[in-house]
């Protein structure tokens, strides 16, 4: 089975991930790829306590995730890999070269970002990073929950929040 979903989500572990995707995909493990979280025992405990007992969670900084990716990919259980930002996912994609599709699950408002969907706000630099992802052969789809329509990147970038 291995990783069924590569997701960019600034909330990292939360209801949409654990329940919204976790239940229908019968997720057995999560890989939280974040340099800050991976360096903090307190942060790791915070997210470890947020997942149900039937799920396992691995924490990794981006470099470790690149080295360990083959192990995640060969895990017999279905899993989800999450980064909190586009930069980390772009580094992972470039380091692994085996990721076919990336899910935009939540990039919320902050100064300098423009609204594309109600759950996707991007700076011009982040738009360029997403173009780089697609240029490297990765399909980029925005979809917050499984029941929502997956929107291709071109449609997302044309969006005005609706």
């Amino acid at each position, binding site marked *: 089975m291995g990783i069924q979903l590569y997701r960019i989500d600034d*909330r990292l572990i*939360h*209801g949409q991930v*654990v329940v919204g995707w976790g239940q229908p995909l019968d997720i057995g493990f999560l890989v939280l790829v974040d340099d800050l979280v991976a360096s903090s025992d307190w942060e790791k405990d915070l997210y470890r306590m*947020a*997942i149900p007992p039937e799920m396992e969670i691995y924490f990794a900084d981006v470099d470790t995730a690149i080295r360990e990716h083959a192990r995640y990919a060969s895990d017999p259980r279905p899993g989800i890999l999450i980064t909190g930002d586009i930069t980390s996912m772009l580094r992972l994609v470039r380091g692994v070269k085996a990721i076919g599709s990336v899910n935009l699950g939540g990039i919320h408002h*902050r100064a300098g970002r423009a609204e594309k969907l109600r759950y996707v706000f991007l700076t011009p630099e982040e738009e360029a990073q997403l173009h780089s992802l697609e240029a490297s052969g990765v399909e980029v789809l925005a979809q917050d929950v499984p029941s929502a329509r997956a929107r291709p990147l071109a449609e997302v970038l044309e969006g005005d929040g609706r």
Partner: protein
Amino acid sequence: MSDIQDAGAGKPRAIVVGHGEFSAGLVSAVGQICGLADKLVVLSNVGQSPQDIEATLRHELARTGARVIFTDLPGGSATIAARRIAKDNPELVLVSGVNLATLLDFVFSSADTPEQAARAAAERGKASLVVIERG
């Protein structure tokens, strides 16, 4: 978090925060049943970044003086944000998995401390979740 409802004369004693309209619905039910919705502040995580959720929770705690936060899911973003606040605020009481019976017990509580009130309410809430047997 734009959805804040704390109208009324009573001083809020807790914040209720969750996904979608979860909190608004629960607190509305409290108001319908006993008229004490003004004891609770309603917040939603809809459309909010983790930083926004945490900032709004901190603002509402400071504004109201409430020392209890009720959240819906243990693994939800509001719970994560509340746990970040609780790290530096040992007097804050965090209860996840809130339901209507929990809130009804809490708003009527005469316990000496917010923690005692929250713990008792959580027990009442757990006891209210039952499968009704046939017959």
